[in-house]
């Protein structure tokens, strides 16, 4: 079983990327489980025909954690992909990080964590221990950072490298950086910049997804690109990315950059 987690700045396209990778892998005949680890709960929406599925935390809130059953929290979507949303408290109360930890414990108890590939789609930043849960022992071994060429997006990705580095240093820490996924915002020399960033942190560019109208069209139709426009060049990009991830054996302990290094790197690709 391969377990991967996608991390990156909020709004950068982690959920779109995760859903399309899951869809592409499922088209290859693989058994996929995608887990949305964000209280916003919209990771799996495009795999579920636009439906916001009940979350693990919704079920806990309604019936208590001991009463939650597998069928209450695992929903089958496109291509038989099993979809789970962790969910969390109402915005502004409680502790969402603890909610992620509780979700993992419940999924373990229910025996939900199986399949050929488990995809963890984690919220914007590793704000507390709870959101580092997918990186812990026994869960995702390969972390993929999703970033555009914008400085703040690179900054967030760089920050997550700190968490990966820290966790990989533990005696039984198996979590490593699998690579960097570029999600384009149509900036000049963007792919080059992200590839350079990946190299500087001691990793590599897993794939680059150019900005495309098809992604918006697919979302408006409540589908992944793989499902909505399987013949499009964008679908080919996602399939290629999914293939690269599936085949990937390179796992690195990243070396995060200092803020000044990051800024001067971004500057290099703008000033010319």
């Amino acid at each position, binding site marked *: 079983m391969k377990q991967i987690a996608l991390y990156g700045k909020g709004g950068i396209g982690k959920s779109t990327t995760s859903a399309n990778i899951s869809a592409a892998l499922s088209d290859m005949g693989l058994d996929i489980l995608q887990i949305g680890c964000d209280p916003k709960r919209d990771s799996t929406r495009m795999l579920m025909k636009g439906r916001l599925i009940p979350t693990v*935390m919704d079920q*806990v*809130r309604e019936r*208590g*954690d001991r009463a939650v059953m597998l069928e209450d929290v695992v929903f089958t979507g496109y291509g038989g992909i099993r979809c789970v949303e962790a969910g*969390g*408290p*109402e915005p502004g*109360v*409680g*502790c*969402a990080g*603890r*909610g992620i930890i*509780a979700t993992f414990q419940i999924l373990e108890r229910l025996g939900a964590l199986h399949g050929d590939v488990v995809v963890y789609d984690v919220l914007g930043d590793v704000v507390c221990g709870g959101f580092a849960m997918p990186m812990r022992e026994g869960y995702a071994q390969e972390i993929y950072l999703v970033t555009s060429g914008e400085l703040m997006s690179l900054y967030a990705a760089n920050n997550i490298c700190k968490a990966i580095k820290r966790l990989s240093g533990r005696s039984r820490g198996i979590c490593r950086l699998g690579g960097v996924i570029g999600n384009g915002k149509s900036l000049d020399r963007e792919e080059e910049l992200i590839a350079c960033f990946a190299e500087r942190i001691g990793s590599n560019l897993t794939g680059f997804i150019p900005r495309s109208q098809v992604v918006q069209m697919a979302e408006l139709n409540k589908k992944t690109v793989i499902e909505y426009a399987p013949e499009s060049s964008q679908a080919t990009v996602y399939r290629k990315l999914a293939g690269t991830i599936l085949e990937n054996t390179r796992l690195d302990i990243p070396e995060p950059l200092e803020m000044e290094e990051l800024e001067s790197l971004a500057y290099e690709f703008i000033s010319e």
Partner: protein
Amino acid sequence: MNSSRNEGCTLTGALSVTTAITDGITIIHGPDGCAHHNSSLLHALQVDSDRLFAPDILSTSLSETEVIFGGEKALEETIRQAAVCEPGVLCVLTSCVSAAIGDDVQAVCRDFSHLPIVVVPTEGFLGGGFSQGVEHALIALSDLGETGEQNGRVTLIGEKNLEYEVEANYLEISRLLSLLGISIDLRFVRNIPAAAVRNLGSASLNILRDPSLIRVGNALESHFGTPFVPAFPVGLEGTRVFLETVGRILGIDSKWAVSAEQKNQNRLIESFHNIRGMVLSSGTNTHPIPSLFEELQQIFDLSFDSRGKTVPIPDPLPVGTSGLSRLLHRWRRICRE
């Protein structure tokens, strides 16, 4: 253990104050363990002092569910539950858990404006320990005080409810004040109903139990204009100075009181003539010998040496002349054994 008796948990310190309100209920907004451990500790200490103690403590029983979804509802429910008993005051004490998840305890309590609620910040992980818990509880409860005409009487601030000699010390202060013709109006907070706290602003003088409460003294002075003496008296000279200080602040001639107390102290010295010249040891106590004992060394020609009889050095130090008398009794008994 890397923690001293005055450190520990803020919550315990605050509870030692809030549970001394006879018609109050204390809510601990935290997991059951916070309420259980503290109740057990307080209970054990009180039983040790031969006092019956069944504090009205309620727990909001925070569990993982409340940690994830927020504990404000649990607090609301517990406040409603407590309100049925119509307590004189409802003290809401926070915990590490409620603070870490960011429950807005003040806002929840504001919604119950028809109830007499006092919020005491007691999240232990923020540091501060036992003493700070006492301080926070006293300052929070002072909100119940009302400004009033000065009544010529005295309020005791922050008596140590858990100390063995708490009542003996109270009697000693009463005795000393009576020499000046003054009485104690309020014990803030020791075994009083919540309504009694209203008089807090009417005292002409506050006497703090010890200087660790200086911020409470300052807060009450700036709010009600009440001057304060920073500590209960320690030592023979210290006791006489205490009488002079209280007299000066209240505009009372203390000459007669000081001279009467001097005579009392002379009788004490006379009655302990047989400890003169004894060699004592503070045992394994590595703290510096307090200045109180320099006075005793001089008066009774005592010396402290590791070869001497090991005698207890109490903490807190004995209060007034009577406290010293009890201490000397103990020392003499030990030396005769």
